[in-house]
């Protein structure tokens, strides 16, 4: 499974290990409501797993974006910065937040897979 999920309702796709893609899930964007602003990390910055890498703001509230695995930010989604609504309309695709180069593959393996994430959603 190349896409994994976190308990903070983020997804990470590791098809390309040098540039794993990170975004928020369908559930997250629905819970947030209309996204009006995103703060993306700086390219080249390093974060440990769980550190706050960015912010996603809806009309009513701001929420942190956490680094799903430790690594270096290699690209950010400028299209999302310009049009934050992409996080609502296509959170699993065009609404991706940033790409990272993971420093520890084992962290990725320990994340929830899709059925696991869907089980989590059922408990909410």
């Amino acid at each position: 499974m190349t896409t994994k999920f976190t308990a903070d309702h983020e997804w990470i796709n590791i098809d390309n290990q040098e540039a794993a893609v990170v975004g928020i899930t369908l559930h997250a964007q629905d819970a947030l409501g209309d996204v009006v602003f995103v703060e993306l990390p700086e390219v080249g910055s390093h974060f440990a797993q769980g550190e706050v890498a960015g912010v996603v703001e809806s009309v009513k509230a701001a929420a942190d974006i956490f680094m799903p695995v430790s690594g270096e930010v290699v690209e950010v989604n400028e299209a999302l910065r310009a049009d934050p609504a992409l996080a609502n309309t296509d959170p699993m695709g065009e609404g991706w937040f940033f790409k990272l180069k993971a420093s520890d593959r084992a962290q990725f393996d320990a994340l929830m897979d899709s059925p696991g994430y869907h089980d989590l959603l059922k408990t909410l």
Partner: protein
Amino acid sequence: MSTDLLQTPLHALHAELGARMVPFAGYAMPVQYPAGILAEHRWCRDSAALFDVSHMGQLQLRGEDAAAALESLLPQAIIDLDLGKQRYAFFTNPQGGLLDDLMVTCRADHLFLVVNAGRKAEDTRHLITHIGHRCNVVPLPGQALLALQGPKAVLALVRLNPSIATLAFMTGGDFELAGTDCFVTRSGYTGEDGFEISVPGAQAERLARALLAQAEVRPAGLGARDTLRLEAGLCLYGHDIDERTTPVEAGLAWAIQKVRRPGGARAGHYPGANVIEGQLSLGSAVKRVGLTGLERVPVREGCAIVDSRGHSLGRVTSGTLGPTVHEPVAMAYLAANHAGLQHEVYAEVRGKRLPMRVTPMPFTPHRYHR
């Protein structure tokens, strides 16, 4: 949703419409419908949005002395409020602070008051305690309140009753709508033309459905109500105004009519008059101002406002990314010497200092029917 929360007469309708419900002032209220806050906000400014505001307090003050009695609790002119006319008003405390803001309408045999949901118990107690011996304070818990707001609200409402078109801004009258006797005022909380409709709870759903059946009308929740009123520069009690803010500090002195000001025939004789009169003549040390962000980052309630050297100037009381103006807009209380228009200040957000400018309110022009 907790079963301890109260429900408005439109609760089942909200569920049917797919509303997302949140607790507000002890009620289960719709914060948004499936369209979302931005779409609901824009529909209001372009067409007509229907809000359920039945959680708010509606009361009557009955008796010949009601107007004079009410004047002893607020600095507005009520005695000479003509039949059918509505006025924005606020209860004050002995320190000149605000206990609530409200709308008062003169009706044939009573004064009709609409107060904030979060203050209706306190306001009712306040009225009974201080003027209950001079007039009858009659809460109307069985009445629902619907707000239909937007440039096309009149088109939709006129289909239900053509004589609605005769209502002037800030006036009210009795109209039959969808087979029910309603009291309608032409006023609201969005900056747009619109109406507030007091309807018996048992008929509220039928009226709401009749309005939603009009092509111009879509439902809107409290989320959009907040972004609309903020862009319109209107205060939200408990956030932009409270017991610690005076009407002069809040920029609401315009709502104190001349006859109640020093020199006027019915000057003073309301709680905190000495404080407020002092500020009317000398100004206040702080002022509520509008701020517009120069960078596209929302600045929200609680944010610190500082000068270029990081010295504290005040705090944000409301803020959002305005869906109509496409900029961050906020209200804040600043020291008077920093409150001049176009003055540049900084909002501290996540450790960064974001430049903002003091700008006039409303952030988007009012389009009241005048």
